[in-house]
């Protein structure tokens, strides 16, 4: 082997190891970057040269710079992030819904409905008392105000949910466009032997963010291009980024692709929760309240209409509630201005409070779904609480899985400066030993050669 060849090997090896240092420096510089994936130089031997007698090694070359990552963990992380985001968001939204019912408290519908029923009971004992009649009206107004507030607040939450859904859809479109741009840049490296690891990291971070917002499936082709679909509908690849918009179709809030009018099947991520709360949960709770108050109006009015008022010209057939619609419980305005129109006498005689007694008894009757009105309401509130709790528990469970996966990912892909240092020191010791042995071997070989 000529000395020039030795220097050539030396030059190439030095360049290779210099590159390895650069990679380590890059790793260390990104040690605190959560989106960064540790990189590793893949080094191999150059193809050896054959001479008449020997096969000479020709040194070392840098094959590629690999990203140290586990594809299976990444895929699991995407799936579990979708699930975690979905349950976490839903538990937050249901928490807001639960709060506006103010149960259990003096200000809740449950207590106000009980007060309303009790006021009828008190009136049945002293039917001619105007103050007790005013008390019935006062309690009815309190109840009507609370029902209206609950319905208005549910409407506000629904409105906010819709706008958040729209904002998140805009963010989804932005992320898809950015992923498309990264795909294009990554594709431009196709001809190069090295892979654009930092661009891949940036794109992975975008895909992770997207997975928290909506259910996605990701596939990678041989050129490292990511192809993403949302609920089975094409979203982005290297050549095109689809756009989506929020639409209400048949009272259901959903995503619709710009080039396909069919609603997307949402099953994960925050968008699913927003859609579910908007389309199903709030409507279901409103419908539950409506059933209770429609029944209350129906039962109270039926009894009240059969009773007789207290005023000079005894009247009958008067409705206590004018209507209940869209969360508004309207009390007969004539009664509000003249409490003597409250019809509590069953036969028109003064001092008869039979109708008031019967109205107060409504609270003990199973008038809806085999339950009393209060029981129906308690079931509704308990259902909201349970659904919130279930989502909270599922979110906690998913969070544990996500945290565990993040830890596993970190143990593989994160940079540990201490680890790099320890590894280097181990190398140093091995190289020192090698250098000494080479020296000993050279001395011995020289000695043998001299005396052979």
């Amino acid at each position, binding site marked *: 082997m000529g000395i020039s060849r*030795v220097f050539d090997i030396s030059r190439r090896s030095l360049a290779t190891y210099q590159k390895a*240092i650069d990679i380590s420096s890059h790793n260390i510089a990104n040690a605190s970057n959560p989106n960064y994936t540790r990189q590793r130089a893949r080094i191999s031997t150059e193809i050896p040269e054959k001479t008449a007698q020997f096969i000479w*090694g020709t040194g070392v070359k840098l094959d590629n710079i690999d990203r140290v990552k586990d594809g299976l963990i990444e895929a699991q992380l995407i799936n579990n992030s979708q699930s975690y985001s979905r349950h976490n968001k839903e538990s937050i939204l249901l928490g807001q819904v639960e709060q506006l019912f103010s149960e259990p408290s003096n200000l809740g519908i449950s207590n106000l409905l009980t007060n309303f029923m009790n006021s009828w009971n008190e009136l049945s004992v002293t039917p001619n008392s105007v103050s007790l009649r005013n008390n019935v009206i006062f309690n009815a107004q309190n109840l009507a105000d609370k029902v209206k507030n609950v319905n208005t607040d549910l409407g506000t939450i629904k409105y906010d949910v819709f706008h958040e859904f729209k904002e998140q859809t805009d963010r989804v479109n932005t992320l898809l466009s950015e992923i498309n741009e990264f795909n294009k840049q990554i594709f431009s490296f196709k001809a190069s032997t090295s892979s654009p690891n930092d661009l891949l990291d940036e794109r992975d971070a975008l895909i992770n963010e997207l997975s928290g917002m909506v259910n996605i499936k990701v596939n990678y082709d041989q050129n490292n291009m990511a192809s993403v679909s949302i609920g089975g509908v094409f979203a982005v690849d290297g050549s095109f980024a689809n756009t989506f918009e929020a639409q209400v179709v048949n009272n259901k809030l959903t995503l619709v692709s710009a080039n396909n009018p069919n609603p997307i099947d949402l099953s994960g991520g925050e968008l699913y929760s927003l859609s579910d709360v908007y389309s199903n949960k709030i409507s279901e709770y409103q419908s539950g309240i409506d059933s209770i108050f429609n029944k209350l109006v129906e039962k109270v009015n039926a009894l009240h209409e059969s009773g007789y008022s207290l005023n000079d010209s005894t009247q009958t057939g008067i409705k206590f509630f004018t209507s209940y619609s869209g969360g508004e419980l309207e009390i007969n305005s004539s009664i509000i201005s003249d409490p003597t129109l409250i019809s509590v006498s069953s036969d028109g005689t003064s001092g008869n409070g039979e109708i008031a007694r019967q109205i107060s008894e409504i609270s003990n009757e199973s008038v809806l779904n085999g339950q009393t009105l209060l029981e129906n309401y308690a079931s509704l509130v308990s259902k909201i609480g349970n659904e919130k709790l279930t989502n909270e528990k599922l979110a906690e469970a998913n969070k544990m899985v996500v945290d565990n996966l993040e830890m596993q990912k970190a143990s593989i892909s994160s940079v540990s*400066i201490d680890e*790099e*240092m320890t590894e280097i020191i181990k190398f140093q010791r*091995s190289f020192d030993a090698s250098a000494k042995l080479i020296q000993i071997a050279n001395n*011995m*070989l020289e000695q*043998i050669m001299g005396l052979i």
Partner: protein
Amino acid sequence: MNKVKLIKILEEQKRNLVELVEVSSRKQKAIVVNNRLALEELNHKEEIVLNKLERKEVERINQILILSNETGLDIQEVNVKTIKDFYRVLRANSSTEVYEQIESLRDETKKLITEAGMINKQNNLLVNQAGSLIKQMVSVLFKSQNKPLLDRKA
């Protein structure tokens, strides 16, 4: 009888040198691919081979002294000059067949030493480069840590 023994020693030494060449070649690969565990294992093997080489060389020198006495050469010490005298006298006192066998083994030994020397030279370059790499790396790591290595008290 003692010439046969010398042949035997040369053959054994040749086998040791073949082993050294093999270990050194594998070591080169281990250095190149940064396989530290393989490198440590090969360092250990090389140490064993070098010990065997040393013992066999002592045996060979002793055998040369014995043979030189037998042939009437009064060699007190084997060196570059006396070894030449030894082989000249050995040639005169040996059959062509035996001497050619010894010569052949000497030639093969020289070739193996040359090969082992070349591989060692390459390994030396690689180890030196690796050493400088480590120095740079440690320097980078210290700069990035920006805190004492041993005193980690926050």
